[in-house]
């Protein structure tokens, strides 16, 4: 059935062709590394240094003290004072500030008299995730301030020490233990996730271009008329691309650990095995695309569209799959990125191996075989026309 020699010859021919196109060859290694560099340094998901402006209508010691909580925080970046509410809205509309704090008159007077006083915060909601996080910071600062105010007031009223009063207002402490990533280093998470993302996007891209190129140039007719079987052609054709992608696995792994300092706590052998399966799988996506389109432009745009969005949004890269809505969860399970995200995060950051991740590996194997079988049946040696 399958002739190993024919496959080897085909693979060698493809390899020579790739080598001859110097720019293509160089870019097939450079593009993944550049993506890793650019995104690894440039995606900063920590919400910090939010630029804000202040409208302080009270101008008292307590209002200044309150604002100091924001000014001294690394989450906020003070941009200056304004003198009217009207001045704030163009600043937010122009993205000069993301947050504005308005302290009304009588702020200090009310608090000293034992009455509540409002503080208004305006948040730019253009980036909902950042707005939500900023809101969390504001709530936390206010809660801390309130606990302090309350403790002082109780200490005064009930004649206990400030220390006792503090224990009274917050009887339950929350002890936090961060697992796997104790320093909450988001660069680690991003670097590990990028390995998944880049290996999702680049192998299909290479493959689709490689196969459709033959179709568009017409050189595929040589294959049609030859004695090479479908299976031999597909395997021989794609082996070099899988090889390039496996080398890229190592390059990306090295960059994630050496450059971005991500730990690798898991089992290297398991990770390599899973990565090879994953690369075979994503190469299969490229193969599938190249069989349904006829031009390289269409192949490029189609691979970009069917790989980028699901691997960013439905992979667990940004949001855990369990937090997605039902329909989105189904989509996530239909796509291989999610399984490999589990493997990457597990191997790099969590330090778990086969015993936990075997289900994910199994799903990848099924996915890869399915895609290759589908392509095998889609590929016809006798074209319609």
């Amino acid at each position, binding site marked *: 059935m399958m002739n190993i020699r024919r496959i080897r010859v085909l693979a060698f021919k493809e390899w020579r062709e790739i080598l001859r196109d110097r720019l293509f060859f160089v*870019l*097939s290694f450079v*593009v993944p590394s*550049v*993506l890793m560099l650019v995104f690894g*340094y*440039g995606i900063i998901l920590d919400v910090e240094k939010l630029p804000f402006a202040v409208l302080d209508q009270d101008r008292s010691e307590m209002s200044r003290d309150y604002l100091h909580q924001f000014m001294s925080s690394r989450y906020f970046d003070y941009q200056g004072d304004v003198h009217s509410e009207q001045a704030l809205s163009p600043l*937010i*509309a*122009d993205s000069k500030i*993301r947050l504005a704090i308005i302290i009304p008159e009588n702020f200090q007077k009310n608090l000293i*008299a*034992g009455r*509540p006083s*409002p*503080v*208004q*915060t305006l*948040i*730019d*909601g*253009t980036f*909902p995730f950042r*707005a*939500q996080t900023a809101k969390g*910071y*504001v709530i936390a600062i206010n809660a801390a301030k309130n*606990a302090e105010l*309350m403790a002082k007031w109780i200490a005064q009223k009930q004649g206990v020490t400030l220390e006792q009063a503090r*224990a*009274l*207002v*917050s*009887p339950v*402490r*929350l002890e*936090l*233990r*961060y*697992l*796997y990533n*104790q320093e*909450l*280093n988001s660069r680690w998470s991003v670097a590990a996730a990028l390995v998944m993302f880049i290996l999702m996007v680049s192998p299909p891209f290479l493959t689709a271009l490689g196969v459709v190129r033959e179709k568009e140039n017409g050189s595929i007719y040589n294959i049609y008329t030859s004695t090479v079987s479908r299976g031999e052609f597909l395997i021989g054709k794609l082996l070099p691309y899988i090889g390039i992608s496996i080398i890229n696995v190592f390059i990306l792994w090295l960059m994630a650990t050496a450059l971005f300092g991500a730990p690798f706590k898991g089992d290297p052998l398991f990770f390599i095995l899973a990565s090879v399966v994953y690369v075979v799988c994503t190469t299969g996506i490229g193969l599938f695309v190249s069989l349904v389109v*006829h*031009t390289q*432009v269409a192949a*490029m*745009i189609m691979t*970009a*569209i069917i790989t980028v*969005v699901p691997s960013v*949004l439905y992979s667990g890269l940004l949001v*855990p799959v369990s*937090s*997605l809505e039902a*329909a*989105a969860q189904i989509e996530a399970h239909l796509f291989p990125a999610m399984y490999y995200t589990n493997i990457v*995060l597990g191997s790099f950051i*969590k330090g778990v191996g086969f015993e936990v991740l075997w289900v994910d590996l199994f799903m990848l194997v099924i996915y890869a075989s399915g895609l290759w079988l589908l392509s095998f049946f889609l590929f016809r040696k006798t074209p319609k026309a």
Partner: protein
Amino acid sequence: MSVQLPKKILLWLRRLRVLTAKELLQLFRDVALMFVIVYAFTMDIYIAGSGVSLQLNKAGIAVIDNDHSIASRELIYQFRPPYFRLNGEVLDSSTAMRLLDEGQVMASLDIPPKFQQHLMEGRQTAVQLQIDTSNAVLGTLAASYAGQIVGKYGLDAALDRAGLTAESLQVLPRIEDRHRVWYNPNQNDAWFFTIAELMTVITVLSIVLPAAATVREKERGTIEQLIVSPLSPIQILLPKVLSMIFVILLGTAVSIFLILGLVFDVPFKGSLPLFFAVTLLYVFSTAGIGLVAATMSRNLAQVGMLTIMILAPVILLSGVWTPPEAMPPGLRQAMYFSPLYYYIEMGYGILLKGAGLDILWDSLLGLTSLGGFIFTFGVWRFNGVLDESH
């Protein structure tokens, strides 16, 4: 002379029209490509906008309740949607650890024995929360929300013990937190994602399509025919760009009215004609990038790779994923070289914030000068390529 000049212009325009029609025809004949373009402007944006939220949403929590009291149950009950979701009780920490390892839950809450008793006696007590921080951002959010929940619970318990009710808060010195989120009061992620995805699609297509149309002529050798024809380089290029602009603007209109407006109820606060005008300018600018890429490569595969190399920084430096204030110093200045940065600023400004030119003029100026430069550079490079082939 006065008769000849208009004739010349007429001829120029006729050539432009004929060639643009030829480019459009070529585009429409590629059925798979047309399908992909339609998909990009509809389904792709729909998928990006539906069901995905960057916020902490129903994070699974396992509970080890060593107290089994009313107080402990009350606290556990506070960990509920939208932020958390109880995954049930486990007996010991090793089971909880296994669930965390497998990613079944994101956190486990450990309540000590005598929790209720200590609360009643007014002694400080502590509950422990273990959080999976392999996704650092979500881990931070979970910690922050858990802090809010426990803090509020503790305060309520303290007030309760002191015999104070919620109404009595009116007579306590406290800051009333009145925050308002502008432009997207409910932090609807779909509004953000659909606009971001639309702009990304526009960017990809406006770089790839003209680049591919140009390199295809090179690869197939049809460029020789164009060189020997009485056409100037700009007459060869402009139809390619114009036909793509036509298709992209059409797609944008479909996407804006059908997907963003109808499906996701994005409130178009500003002027839509202004948005389309800005889009037109933007597509022109990025088409220039495509032309530059086309002059640098010999075949489509190379163009494809080069495009990714260009696209990644353009998208990254646009501020969609990392706004300017969060960028490290060097990258922050580099953003001024990404045309998408200006387009994002104006796009969100017009569509969500309702801003007009009085506020966005500086971005418009930036895009115009950057786009003008890129497009001129692209045409200049193309001229050079044509001269070489001569």
